[in-house]
């Protein structure tokens, strides 16, 4: 499979999504090592999950700042990672799983429901399987999870706020999973984690 531009769009009047789709298996070794495209990875309870193979290539931070994945969500919000991310993935071009667009649509719907701004935290959108926070298979490495630390002026750092917005998310987004409030592993006490599960997105342009 070679990287391909989204040329198969039949609706000529519709805007063309500007990011190139890339097969992770064709990337240079340092990227393949960090992204582990298509590999199996066990989750916290030992179930094997298949990592994404297809990614959007983000050429620059400028591009990430401009691309709207949804009306109120720009691409950069989903790819903010800190020094804990693999070095190859902290410089551009960056690669983000194609399912990120699904997450953006869900968050837009969630934003409508809460009626105010939804802030994704650093390291709280896409992070690779090589990120130091990624101990087991986490939907963050599929680009289908978001950690939200603030909604409007409310910091989600207490039970009341987390449970209130968690309920709104579950009512608004059928099938969404939210992490329960609490301190043990698997719980969250300083953000709202929501995810769509281990969704793999294979764009139409991909033909192998």
């Amino acid at each position, binding site marked *: 499979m070679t990287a391909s531009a989204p040329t198969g769009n039949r609706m000529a009047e519709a805007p063309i999504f500007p990011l190139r789709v890339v097969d992770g298996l064709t990337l240079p070794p340092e990227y393949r090592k960090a992204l582990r495209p298509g590999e199996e990875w066990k989750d916290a309870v030992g179930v094997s999950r298949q990592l994404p193979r297809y990614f959007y290539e983000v050429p620059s931070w400028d591009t990430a700042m401009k691309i709207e994945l949804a009306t109120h969500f720009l691409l950069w919000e989903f790819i903010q990672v*800190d*020094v*804990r991310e693999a070095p190859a993935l902290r410089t551009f071009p960056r690669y983000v799983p194609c399912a990120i667009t699904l997450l953006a649509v869900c968050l837009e719907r969630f934003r409508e429901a809460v009626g105010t701004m939804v*802030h994704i*935290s*650093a390291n709280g959108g896409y992070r690779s399987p090589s990120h130091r926070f990624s101990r087991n298979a986490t939907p963050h490495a599929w680009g289908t999870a978001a950690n939200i630390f603030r909604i409007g002026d409310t910091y989600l750092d207490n039970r009341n706020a987390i449970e209130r917005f968690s309920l709104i998310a579950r009512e608004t987004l059928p099938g969404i999973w939210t992490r329960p409030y609490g301190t043990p592993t698997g719980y969250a006490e300083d953000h709202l984690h929501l995810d769509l599960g281990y969704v793999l997105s294979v764009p139409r342009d991909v033909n192998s």
Partner: protein
Amino acid sequence: MTKTEKPTAHAGATAASQRESVLQDRIENIEKESGAKAVAVALHDGETDFDLHYRADRWFHAASTIKVPILLGVFAAIDRGELLPHSRVHVRNRFLSVVENVPFRVESGRDSNSAVHNSIGKMMRVDELAYHMITTSSNLATNLLLGVIGPESVTQTLKELHVDEGIELKRGVEDELAFEKGISNMVTANGLLKILVMLAEGKAFSPALSRRMMDILHGQEFNQGIPARLPKGTRVAHKTGEISTVAHDAGVVYLPKRKPYSLVVLTEWDQGATGRSRTIASISHAIYETLTGTAVKDE
């Protein structure tokens, strides 16, 4: 050595010994008058090579002076290329105690500067965090940096630089559970002095990196200790440390037309005792007068 030099050297040694004795007496008097439970002082004068060690190997709770070794650890990671000054760190207020990994937070009221707390959920640069860790003693910035580099790497750095004696880094700051169990970061005056002398002499990693660390220490905003009774315009690169039972200050004093001197003053107190900073300032004042032979008029 010539015959004519011998008496001079002897006179020099005698002068140093007299100076040491005078200083010891002055510090002892200040200590008695202060009501402190314990005082320790370590001094190295880069101009004359004069050293003073007053209970300088006694261990104290480090309080925020431990942030100087942590700063060294951060710059070690920069020196190794693992971090860049502009590397970005996720600001998250959630840490795990060394006791059973129980999560804890740094209370925003405990940091004198809200800049780091205001960035929760976002990212800050390593150099910004290092600056806040030292200049306003941000506990949140400290724990974030320690989370990135790891306490063990700081300890390793101290060993490699041969300044590990007198420094025990066991945990991040504000780990109350660890404090209750008696697990605390500890320092001696001599331990901190070795680090300061190395920084002042530009020998930590490289002269450029040493200078950058000194620049950060020069930005210190709490100046009630060592600098308080020094002449106006004296530059002091330093780090204070204070909890309910200790008050410390450790820094390098730059005076015009002479090499700097490095000074560490550690003090221990009963809870609620007053005059803590004043005691440190008095000791610093006495040292200044003795080293320069100049009296400072208090304003």
